[in-house]
């Protein structure tokens, strides 16, 4: 499949999010097939003796028929089967300087990851949050789970301001005892220290945490033709500034913010990745796969 289907501008023209996810993942996977390094499937890992309490669905009955011993068939994928997507739906995610908003990009990414997990028979769920938990789909691999997840992602619309504390508290309180993979998709307009301190506890529980930092190109390198009156999309605050400030001082600050977030994330054992909404999704998917493979 053509790599251009990973281009967010192309994906923006597809209205069905599930179709977007399939397009992205299928295109990405078919691209990966050329490289055995990234091979990904329900790979057989090992046989182990059946212990009491094991799920009978995984007993290899053929072996039992031949040997009269019960063996459990283990797959690599089984070792990490919970994916929780944390999707920031704050008002700032509605910003866009071109055809794809940050929330759109985040939704494409989340849907693609959910679809990929569904393909792997992984349990996947989503938490849509701003300063509250707006939607919560518990990770599961049951039938219909994928539809529910996709529905929740698709219905995520920009709401109010961001507050990491509440949703993560919710996540921690309900899921802290179950290991899995947590993917946070946000623009992280928060103090890096706060962000990392909020998310870091997940890592202590054995979860793998991936931070996808989504920014618009205009947020990274803003260009204004003249003095502008900026209006904060979350708070409504107005601020007059000059193009010179945006070209020089602002760039320094955002670069410092990104660098601090990255450094603190690495220190805390979190995986951090910055994406601008004009870049294809493949690097995000590749990042996810690397993390997941590391867990296998």
């Amino acid at each position, binding site marked *: 499949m053509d790599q251009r289907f990973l281009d967010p501008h192309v994906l923006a023209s597809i209205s069905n999010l599930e179709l977007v996810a399939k397009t992205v993942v299928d295109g990405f996977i078919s691209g990966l097939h050329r490289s055995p390094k990234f091979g990904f499937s329900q790979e057989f890992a090992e046989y182990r003796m059946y212990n009491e309490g094991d799920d009978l669905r995984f007993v290899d009955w053929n072996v039992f028929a031949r040997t009269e011993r019960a063996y459990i068939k283990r797959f690599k994928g089984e070792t990490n089967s919970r994916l929780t997507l944390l999707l920031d739906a704050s008002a*700032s*995610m*509605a*910003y866009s300087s071109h055809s794809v908003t*940050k929330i759109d990009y985040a939704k494409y990414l989340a849907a693609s990851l959910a679809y990929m997990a569904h393909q792997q028979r992984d349990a996947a769920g989503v938490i849509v949050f701003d300063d509250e938990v707006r939607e919560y789909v518990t990770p599961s691999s049951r039938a219909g789970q994928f539809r529910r997840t996709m529905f929740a992602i698709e219905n995520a619309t920009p709401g109010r301001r961001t507050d990491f504390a509440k949703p993560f508290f919710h996540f921690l309180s309900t899921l802290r005892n179950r290991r899995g993979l947590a993917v946070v998709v946000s*623009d992280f*307009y928060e103090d890096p220290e706060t962000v990392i301190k909020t998310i870091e506890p997940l890592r202590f529980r054995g979860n793998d945490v991936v931070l996808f930092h989504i*920014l*618009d*190109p205009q*947020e*990274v*390198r803003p260009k*204004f*033709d*003249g*003095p*502008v*009156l*900026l*209006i*904060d*999309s*979350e*708070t409504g*605050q*107005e*601020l*007059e*500034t*000059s*193009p*010179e*400030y*945006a*070209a*020089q*001082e*602002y*760039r320094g*600050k*955002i*670069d410092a*913010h*990104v*660098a601090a977030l*990255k450094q603190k994330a690495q220190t805390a054992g979190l995986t951090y*990745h*910055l*994406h*601008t909404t004009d*870049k294809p999704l493949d*690097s995000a998917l590749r990042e996810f796969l690397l993390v997941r493979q590391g867990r296998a």
Partner: protein
Amino acid sequence: MGFLSPWFLGAAALAGLPVWLHLLRQHKTTPVHFSSLMFFEKRTTTSTRQRRLRYYALLAMRLLALLLLILAFARPYWERKIAAGSGKRMTVAAIDNSFSLRRGNALDAAKEQALGLAGKVSGAEPGIVVAFGASAHEIGQKADDAATFRNHVQAVAAGDSRTSYAELSRVLRGLAEAHRMPLDVHVYTDLQRSGMPARFADLQLPADTKIEIHDVAPKELTNYTVEAVTPPGRIFDTAKARVRATIAALHAPKATKQVSLVADGKVLATKPVDIPENGRASVEFTGLDTGYGFHRGEVRLENAGDTFPGDDVFRFAIERSDPRKVLYLHSGRDSRSALYVKAALDAAVPNAYAIETAAYETTSSPNLNNVSFVMLADPGTLPPSLENALKDYVQKGGALWIAAGGFTGALPKLPVSGLAVKESRMASRSREMFQSVAAKEPLHPVMERTAGIESVKFYQVVAIDPGASAKVLAKTADAAPVVIEQPMGEGRILILASPLDNLGNNLPLHPAFVPLLERAAQYLSRQQESTGIVAVGEGVELRAASDRAIGVEVLDPRGERALTLEQAAKATSFAPQTEGYYEIRRGNGRASLVAVNADRRESDFTRMEDETVALWKATGEPGETQRVNASGERTETVSPWWWLLLAVLGLTVAEGVAASQYLYGSGEGAPSPAELASKEAA
């Protein structure tokens, strides 16, 4: 300081435009929704100040450019005083040496008056003597002392050209430009109106030029003159030669004058002529008894009794020669065409051609010596000896006329010429089926007087293929050549693709026949039509542009060579500057005589009107840029508008560079982390 167009200063209000652009417009801020103001700071005051400061240079350049442009349009000026001591002037004595100044001692009187200027000439205020007629030229260099100036005045010689005040003005403009000094011009002239140019603007004098006219002719001058003479250029029969002269009375009363015809100094005839008051009369002389060769003739007004005897003689050159021998060959059955040809040539140029006729059947080896050209009437198949003789004759420079008819059209090739014959088309007279000339070369000497030849009905036209070498001079509507010129060796052949017997066409009875045959005969015998008279300053053709290899020598009236070696080798024309007879000797042995007369407009002493003279003087008065006050102190008006426009241009360029630096000079900052990340990934 003042302004020539001060109302333009009102446009200075436009200076507010860049101020508004720079100061008011930039306060406008565009509301922009942004995701988060987390990293933004309020920079309203500082940014505006920075911007204002930053754009000060740009604003200044724009304001300055606009104000300078307005200033340039307002035409500022100031007056610069030049001290009287430094207001040195050059004295110019312009002496008219045209033909009319040959009247009595008019030129000497003019020079005598001009000598009076010598006292004004010094090293600081030099003097220049200019002699002018049809052309004007300085006599020597500028004179720094009175003696040199006098010598220059004395060096002015009489001329035969006509007066041209436009030429004098042109030279004066050149002098003012070359010497960078205002001129005091004294013109010594008879103020002939005929010296005025067609455009008054040609009389424009340089700025700050004082011109004083010294009239060297009385107010009223009566004059009788031989205004024009019409002689035959060449005579063959002396008894029938006619010379007609026009005698004019210019501001003169009615009178009876004796007019003589003179050849080589010998008076051949004298006739009285009654000239009306301020009118003209003509007199005609018949018979010009001269020997063979060139002769110097003149028509002379005897005892004219006027003040200007110089124009009482009008010279002309005349050549007497034997009639040119023409051999006309025809078939025994054709007795009509020779008749038509003889009658036509006799009517056109009486006695100029002696036509010998002979039949092909009886002529096998004709004597072609001294034959001007040969005419073949529908030759058909010629005896080989005759054809070879004709070919040889043409190759060596002879000329041949072929009128092709039915016999010739039946051959595959034209005799002598060798051009291919495609077919011979004969139309019926009864059915009115004929062809006519649809296109011709009107500038070719043979065709230039053949007006109406288009109505000649050609019933028989031999279709001749002209090939690459021959030139079609006339052709029918279906592009069949009717008249063809074919060069062969050193000679030439003219071909008429139809007979001259009045059967194949009606050309012999058509009015175009006589001029066609006359011009063809002249062209074939290489005669030039010339009356042998030109005016002083007019060009005399020496050679065609294609005949550069032939050397030409011109002997002036004193018998001296009038051309330099280079001119003798290359010049195509020559303009004689004095009256008299000029002998032109060409390298091919041909010679001619040209009589040169002064332009008869010089005989008219009608004076230029006083108003015209005043207007001419006024063209040299100081204009808006220069004024002279009562004390002689000169003030010069200086306007810097040109420099202002240059400054505007420079500022505009500088503004463009500065603006592009301000707008785009900030450039891009350091690469973003995303860009770095993508680079790392790559």
